[in-house]
């Protein structure tokens, strides 16, 4: 019976291609992770399971400082971007359309539309000028650059959450003697919190992953984990890079899983 059932949505070959696509997506990643656990020094020959390269990477001062720097930049940039994005989302949603609204949208989404390499050289030029004027060489440039391109990623989930929010809840709060500030503090903000957290997590992941802009903006000795890895790839690659990648990959997967759980809850 089952074989003769008419299945209009089934197109021959599609399922096979899809399966191949999933294998092709994950096989390289699994290979990369597997080699991270390789005991030998070569990345070509499998010499038994070992955590050797993880401990080697962990002992490497350059990796340590790059990791720390990546986390500091990602946390700072995510904090700045999420704050700015939350305010912007509150400003641009749930009010009558106004002149200039499109301008704000275009501005906020601009980092999504410009090729990274273009922004990277633009910031190289600008920050180069500022560096020579002020003499300041710190992490501020990277944090500012990262905050800028993280804003649209933080903005989207927050805005979505705001638009899905029942306006009558805030009306109800006002009816129950809450001042505008109390309404924001006790109703809007708690209801918005999952969206803000989701936005912050996306911003964090995006900042953590950035290569191109960081590569152009960083001053000497300001390698982040990705730029450190990019530098390593120019030389003979050891499984140390696999180990670092695996660590970064694990962190991303954890954050994304949390993000999905957070955003799914609202339905």
């Amino acid at each position: 019976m089952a074989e003769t059932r008419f299945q209009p949505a089934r197109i021959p070959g599609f399922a096979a291609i899809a399966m191949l696509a999933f294998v092709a997506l994950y096989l390289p990643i699994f290979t990369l992770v597997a080699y991270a656990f390789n005991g030998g020094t070569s990345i070509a020959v499998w010499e038994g399971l070992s955590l050797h390269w993880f401990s080697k990477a962990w002992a490497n001062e350059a990796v340590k400082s790059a990791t720390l720097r990546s986390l500091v930049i990602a946390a700072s940039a995510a904090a700045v971007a999420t704050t700015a994005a939350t305010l912007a989302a509150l400003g641009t949603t749930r009010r009558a359309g106004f002149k200039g609204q499109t301008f704000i949208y275009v501005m906020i989404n601009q980092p999504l539309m410009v090729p990274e390499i273009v922004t990277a050289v633009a910031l190289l030029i600008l920050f180069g000028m500022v560096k020579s004027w002020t003499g300041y060489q710190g992490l501020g440039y990277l944090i500012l650059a990262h905050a800028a391109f993280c804003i649209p990623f933080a903005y989207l989930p927050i805005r979505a959450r705001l638009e899905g929010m029942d306006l009558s809840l805030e009306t109800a709060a006002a009816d129950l003697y809450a001042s505008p500030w109390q309404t924001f503090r006790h109703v809007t903000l708690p209801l918005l919190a999952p969206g803000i957290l989701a936005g912050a997590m996306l911003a964090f992941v995006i900042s953590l992953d950035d290569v191109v802009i960081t590569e152009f903006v960083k001053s000497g000795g300001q390698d982040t984990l990705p730029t450190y890895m990019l530098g390593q790839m120019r030389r003979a690659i050891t499984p140390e890079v696999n180990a670092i990648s695996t660590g970064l990959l694990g962190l991303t997967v954890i954050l994304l899983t949390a993000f999905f759980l957070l955003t799914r809850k609202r339905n």
Partner: protein
Amino acid sequence: MSALEDQARARSVRNAWALSAPALVILAVAAVGPLLIVLVYSFLTPGKYGNVEWQFSTDGWLGILFTRDIFDETLKLADAHLTIWWRSVRLSLLTTLFTFAVGFPTAWFIATRPPRARGFWLFLITIPFWTNLLIRTFAINEVIRNEGLFNTVMIRLGLFSEPLRIINTDAAVLMGMTYVYLPLMVLPLFAAIDRFDMRLLEAGYDLYANRWQVLRHVILPIVKPGIVAGSILVFVPSLGAYVTPRVLGGGKNMMIGNFIELQFGQGRNWPLGAALSVTLLLITTAALLFYVRAANKGGNGHG
């Protein structure tokens, strides 16, 4: 309208700008503003040790396609530059085509799963989507490099006597870009197919269409906005790709992104790099505008 209501409206607009201001300032300083500086730099003269001399020149712009003969100062089409442009466009178009060929069946497969399983398959696509581009490029490198998984397996099986050299070729860059940008094609296609009313298929078959005709005359026209969106989302970053060609293409198989970097490094021709950047930005913007127009025309589903 009473004056009070007008006041309330004006206050609302003021609040909107005040709340958006921090984000706008950050973006103006670190994203939009610098682009104007790039435009200015593209009209200056290169400095001897990098950077620029503040002297007006159109050489940066001419350099996009031409080169000045060292001896008689005449302009000639620069073969090397043309090769890089052509490689960028060709590889980006091929990447778009390949991701579509693989991505459409994949998106269709996901969208026709039962609702519970759908979330799982979609999650499998989203994980690579959010995973570090560099790591994914490195991962594909693990498969295709000379001592990588592919060659090792082939030699072990005795199919190859020596490794097939894929790395540092255009093919490697193409494979890499198809791999890293596949999720960008699948996600919008999925969104479009997910909205597609499957009863239309029954209607199509009922009206004597065969599978191919249903695909050609019913499915593809209706999910076209998703196809356009996916194609733009793949084409635009492919054209500006920097990491993938650098890691997989070696030094020689440059794309426009690497060519731009070269001008700010060893090339020491910042105006040319700036002009190339502006050109890339213009092409990208044109593609996005085309997308916006196509989406507004065809896709009433998801304005």
